[in-house]
């Protein structure tokens, strides 16, 4: 796709698969943590050649201190030795199918390598705060001059302009600020946030399609473009209907898992330790079926308004029914009667209970020799399903390949860059 490129690295690595929609697209991945790496993972899953450019300390220290929160169950079998930077669960989940170059962009020689790489790439994505790229001398104008076909996607928390442009943020701040937490509550004015910080993966998915949209635009215009993606602005779109309704003056939100239209709706205790079932009655037929199961034929004629005023009493009847049943059996019974119901899955259930599709998980052989199941790409595209999945790269695993085969540096050049600490393959001591 990029004429100047020194050929496909994925082909050299025997990783090329025919038919993937982003074959031939090269992405430079400067992202960290969560939303950004998810964005580039989607592109890699769809066939793009994604090259992570990582600082040697970006994956954490060489030794994990005994009192660090990082110790908490995110290494295989709890064991971080000998190379914790290659063994982190969340990192490995988010960076499969990618390549890694471990480069110090703060050094002039490192920046020169990055510039050479950007010159032969199609997309660059970063999720720094909005000061970093200009401070490196890599603002949009420079990038566009360096490679007019390059798509540049930046994703600062609050956006690249306006009074908050330099504000720092993470998902735990963005989700509430974007307005989602106000609607997540057992009662008004007692907000919660999601444990997975939904704004992060949402932004990751939107950023991936924004990059694809820009590549599609490039097919028309011949030029790359700059995308400024504010986490807040993307996330607020989740509650667009609520925002419109709130301006009408006649609307009161529902809380505590209830719903305006689906009545009753709630989360009900099942048999076992902290086991639950979610249920919503989506129409009158489902309501009559539920009455049948609950043994409350006398309730069958209740319309939605009547059910709403009896919600507490109905909830008690559902709890009485559910609490003596196992959650998956309860779900299956309710669904057999046409009622929307779902077992509240723990992380172990997601992996082991056989409810999510088999195709949802793929097994990937890890660098320490174990095979680990990971969530795959959730959408099917006919004729374009990936058959082989590649583990997350070790830090700097593709330094030599990228510099010699793609950027035309000699082996002596590469050795000198290692010597100067510009290239590395493990964290600083």
């Amino acid at each position: 796709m990029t004429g100047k490129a020194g050929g496909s690295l994925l082909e050299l690595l025997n990783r090329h698969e025919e038919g993937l929609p982003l074959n031939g697209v090269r992405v430079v991945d400067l992202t960290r943590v969560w939303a950004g790496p998810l964005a580039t993972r989607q592109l890699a899953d769809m066939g793009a050649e994604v090259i992570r450019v990582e600082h040697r300390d970006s994956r954490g220290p060489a030794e994990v201190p005994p009192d660090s929160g990082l110790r908490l169950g995110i290494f295989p079998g709890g064991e971080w030795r000998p190379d914790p930077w290659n063994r982190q669960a969340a990192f490995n989940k988010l960076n499969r199918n990618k390549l890694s170059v471990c480069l110090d962009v703060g050094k002039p020689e490192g920046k020169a390598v990055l510039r050479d790489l950007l010159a032969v790439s199609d997309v660059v994505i970063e999720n720094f705060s909005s000061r970093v790229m200009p401070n490196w001398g890599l603002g949009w104008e420079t990038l566009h001059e360096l490679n007019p076909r390059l798509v540049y996607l930046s994703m600062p928390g609050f956006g690249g302009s306006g009074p908050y442009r330099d504000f720092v943020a993470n998902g735990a701040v963005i989700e509430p600020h974007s307005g989602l937490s106000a609607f997540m509550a057992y009662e008004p004015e007692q907000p919660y946030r999601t444990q997975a910080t939904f704004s992060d993966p949402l932004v990751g998915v939107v950023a991936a399609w924004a990059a694809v949209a820009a590549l599609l635009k490039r097919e028309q215009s011949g030029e790359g473009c700059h995308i400024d993606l504010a986490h807040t602005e993307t996330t607020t779109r989740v509650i667009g209907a609520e925002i419109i309704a709130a301006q009408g003056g006649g609307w009161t939100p529902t809380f505590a898992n209830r719903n305006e239209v689906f009545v009753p709706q709630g989360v009900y205790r099942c048999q076992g330790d902290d086991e639950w079932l979610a249920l919503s009655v989506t129409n009158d037929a489902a309501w009559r079926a539920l009455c049948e199961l609950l043994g409350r034929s006398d309730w069958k004629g209740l319309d939605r308004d009547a059910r709403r005023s009896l919600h507490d009493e109905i909830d008690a009847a559902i709890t009485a029914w559910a609490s003596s049943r196992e959650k998956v059996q309860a779900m299956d019974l309710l669904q057999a009667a046409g009622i929307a119901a779902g077992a509240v899955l723990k992380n172990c259930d997601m992996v082991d209970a056989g409810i999510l599709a088999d195709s949802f998980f793929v097994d990937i052989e890890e660098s320490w020799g174990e095979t680990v199941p990971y969530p795959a790409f959730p959408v099917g595209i006919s004729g374009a399903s990936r058959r082989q999945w590649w583990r997350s790269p070790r830090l700097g695993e593709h330094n030599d390949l990228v510099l010699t085969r793609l950027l035309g540096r000699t082996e002596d050049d590469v050795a000198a860059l290692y010597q100067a600490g510009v290239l590395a393959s493990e964290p600083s001591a």
Partner: protein
Amino acid sequence: MSVAPLLQGVRVVELGSSIPAAYCGKVLAELGADVIKVEPPAGDILREHGPFVDTPGTENSASFHYYAAGKRSVVVAPDDSDIIVRLQRSASVILTDADDGYPDPGEGWDGIHAVFKGLASTSRSGYVVSDIVAYALGGYLYTDGASEREPLKGGGEQPEHAAANYAIMAILAAMLGRKRTGESGRVEVEVPLVECMATMHWYSTVMWTYAGLVKQRIGNRLDITHPVSLYRCSDGWVAIGAGGNDAWAMLAAAMGEPDLASDPRFANGASRLANADEVDAIITGFTSNLTRREVMTLLQELRVPCGLVSSPEDLLTDPQYEARDYWRDAGVPGRPGVRAPGPPFRSADLPFESAPAPRLGAHTDVVLATLSKQGEVHG
């Protein structure tokens, strides 16, 4: 010179009535596609779906105004296969819900067909998946809310937005793949609501597959460090994400207690987590005497991640959204001041258009009059 919208000249026929299909269609319309929303004579189900602007009514649903913005409405009887097939064959993208009974566009149609469904699993593929059921099966619900209470679903219809955005990604990627290879042929895109939501996790499933740990419900805190939580101010709540040691030191400085940074009880993420109640009492002592905006300004000056817990009213008056000209006219008839969220991202080369949602059947005549009798395939 204004830039042409990305999907100018692309026709989308939206037969699905689920929120994922509707949001996918909304975005394609914003990107310039001609999105035809096919409605039954009684109107799309979202017209009856809350929340409502004022009282319930077919033209009063905030959901419909939001999700159908920029589309054209064509009323067709669900059993009029002839018209539906001709509509489908005039389009290059079709959005449907699984098992909705609509006919296939037939041979020779080589567009992109996206099908929205609940669960991908074969044994339970027919299950009815409402919003809260997708939160449950997608693994979000169990870990969210207070540990001593029942699990709590998130704000807004998060699973639906996850699925819709995955669908947009797949449709645009399929378009790009075709453009670059010159290949044609029908593409089927399958979008399962539950599996899309189940992908939206950071370390939940890997906590189990790596270390055999069950991710617990822990309120607003984080498992790996502290303080990352919501805190009460004099006029509501703020979110503070100061889990890193540097951010904690700056937070301590902002609170006028810089020595906290070197206090062994709070020296690192694990110790602050072990003493989280104490940490939270200290922070609340500071925040509860200040307004939310005072806290946010103070902390951001020291580069401590902080934001408000915003209500819709807060968002509509937020100086950042205002400065970036985020809001659009929501197009609610008779309510010119009502606003809706603007584009998900900004690019001079990828303009997003905004237009009101259609009245029921507003475009039936004009669209049907232009349909080819033979059901010719789109150009």
